[in-house]
């Protein structure tokens, strides 16, 4: 195998420009060693970020990430790349704000360009009543020190001239809630950047290594059984969102989570058309849309609507998302969809994540991210690493512990009740 990519700098870029072999691997392929301080199960955004912070912030030298497929296969490469912190509940907006701030500097922290673009995130309102709800959410955010702006039609026209709010629509557009610092981040770069930075700190990234069981002795976990043999571990972290229910089954612990499909799609590239991230709820459906740097319109909607592991998206949901996009921007009606895919979502009973100890003192769960997985990665990695390294959860994620269901302190952002499909 050729040499690894160097630390990036102006000099390294210049050198690469005149070099013949500048495509170099970002991390070394490895087999699992016999024993580790921490084994992180799942090489998605959360697993990689957790491993990175364990190595960088807590100085742990023997850490590995075991990934069943390859880095970037799962939800870290299947989301719609949106980052924002426009939540209503303090536990959520403080956490996602921490994450957004980390995204702002992530390219520097990882020495890898993740293409953070603070292009703004706008939620469109269909009615005056909805404006009241948006004002409530915006005020909650501002009280928490986060930027939020309520836009009326005139404000909307000024902020996004590409949208004509006055067109006759079945669900009219009367205003919106804007978070200017929200935007998009290139999701593959987040996975690769964390993997590269973690590997550079000595983390073993093991691909195509499926964990099939947890081995315990005397009430503590001693390691994991994998497709590449037994791996001893002082501590085990499960970061397998989308399959957290399977971990519960593996450990014999029923969890407040179900697996649902969430789909996304991208059109053929076109010239700059939409300069922000815009989300439009109409009737029971929803579309969120942004334009990638290559020019494709990236769109997503709500869950397919029933538990599934198939990763085969429903066609009628695609139709609904496209209808919403055309209702917002009639000129996109002629575009062709290039790709259409689904990811498996952990959907919890209150719509908020599950981070904390799981059954054993040295086993930790990081999952249940519902719609918020990608935007949570940097904060989740840092906080989860602190939890694993010190044994106590930082304030930022204390509200996400599993015990909240028993004590009644659920974080039901939407007020939907214990129905994962509605969260």
């Amino acid at each position, binding site marked *: 195998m050729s040499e690894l990519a160097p630390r990036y700098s102006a000099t390294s870029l210049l050198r690469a420009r005149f070099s013949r072999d500048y495509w170099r691997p970002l991390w070394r392929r490895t087999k699992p060693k016999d024993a580790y301080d921490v084994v992180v199960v799942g090489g998605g955004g959360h697993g990689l970020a957790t491993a990175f912070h364990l190595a960088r912030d807590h100085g742990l030298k023997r850490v590995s990430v075991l990934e069943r497929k390859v880095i970037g296969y799962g939800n870290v490469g299947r989301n719609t790349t949106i980052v924002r912190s426009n939540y209503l509940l303090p536990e959520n907006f403080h956490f996602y704000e921490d994450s957004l701030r980390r995204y702002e500097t992530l390219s520097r922290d990882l020495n890898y360009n993740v293409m953070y673009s603070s292009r703004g995130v706008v939620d469109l309102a269909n009615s005056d009543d909805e404006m009241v709800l948006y004002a409530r959410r915006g005020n909650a955010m501002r009280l928490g020190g986060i930027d939020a702006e309520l836009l009326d039609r005139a404000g909307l026209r000024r902020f996004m001239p590409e949208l004509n709010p006055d067109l006759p629509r079945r669900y009219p557009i009367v205003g919106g809630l804007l978070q200017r610092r929200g935007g998009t981040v290139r999701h593959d770069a987040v996975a690769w950047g964390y993997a590269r930075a973690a590997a550079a700190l000595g983390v073993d990234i093991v691909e195509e290594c499926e964990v099939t069981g947890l081995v315990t002795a005397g009430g503590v976990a001693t390691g994991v059984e994998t497709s590449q043999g037994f791996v001893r571990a002082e501590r085990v972290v499960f970061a397998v969102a989308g399959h957290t229910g399977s971990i519960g089954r593996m450990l014999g612990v029923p969890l407040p989570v179900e697996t649902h499909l969430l789909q996304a799609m991208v059109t053929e590239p076109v010239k700059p058309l939409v300069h922000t991230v815009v989300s439009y709820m109409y009737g029971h459906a929803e579309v969120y849309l942004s334009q990638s740097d290559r020019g494709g319109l990236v769109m997503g909607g709500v869950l397919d609507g029933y538990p599934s592991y198939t990763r085969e998206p429903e066609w009628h949901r695609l139709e609904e998302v496209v209808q919403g996009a055309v209702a917002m921007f009639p000129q996109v009606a002629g575009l062709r969809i290039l790709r259409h895919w689904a990811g498996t979502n952990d959907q919890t*009973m209150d719509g908020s994540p599950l981070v904390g100890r799981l059954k054993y003192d040295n086993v930790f769960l990081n999952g249940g991210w519902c719609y918020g997985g990608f935007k949570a990665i940097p904060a989740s990695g840092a906080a989860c690493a602190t939890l694993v390294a010190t044994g106590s959860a930082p304030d930022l994620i204390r509200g996400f512990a599993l015990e909240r269901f028993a004590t009644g302190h659920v974080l039901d952002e939407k007020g939907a009740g214990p129905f994962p499909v509605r969260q």
Partner: protein
Amino acid sequence: MTHLRCPFCGVRPVEEFSFHKTLPNVAGGPFADTFLRSDDPQDSHEHWQHRLGCRAWLLTRRNPSTGEVLELRLLGGAAS
């Protein structure tokens, strides 16, 4: 999954149906019934409704890993 077979209306597109919830499968009383599920990737017991059709409530058993419907009958009715 593209179609479901309604006991009254026959084979209809899945978008006419709406999934309501998975059924409790963990012992532990009302708390477990409400909040906890034991994940079975091959067998999920659910309530659905033929909401945009005859509005009948249905009891289903599906395999969430393949989308195959293992059993579907009228809620409260006899197995067919």
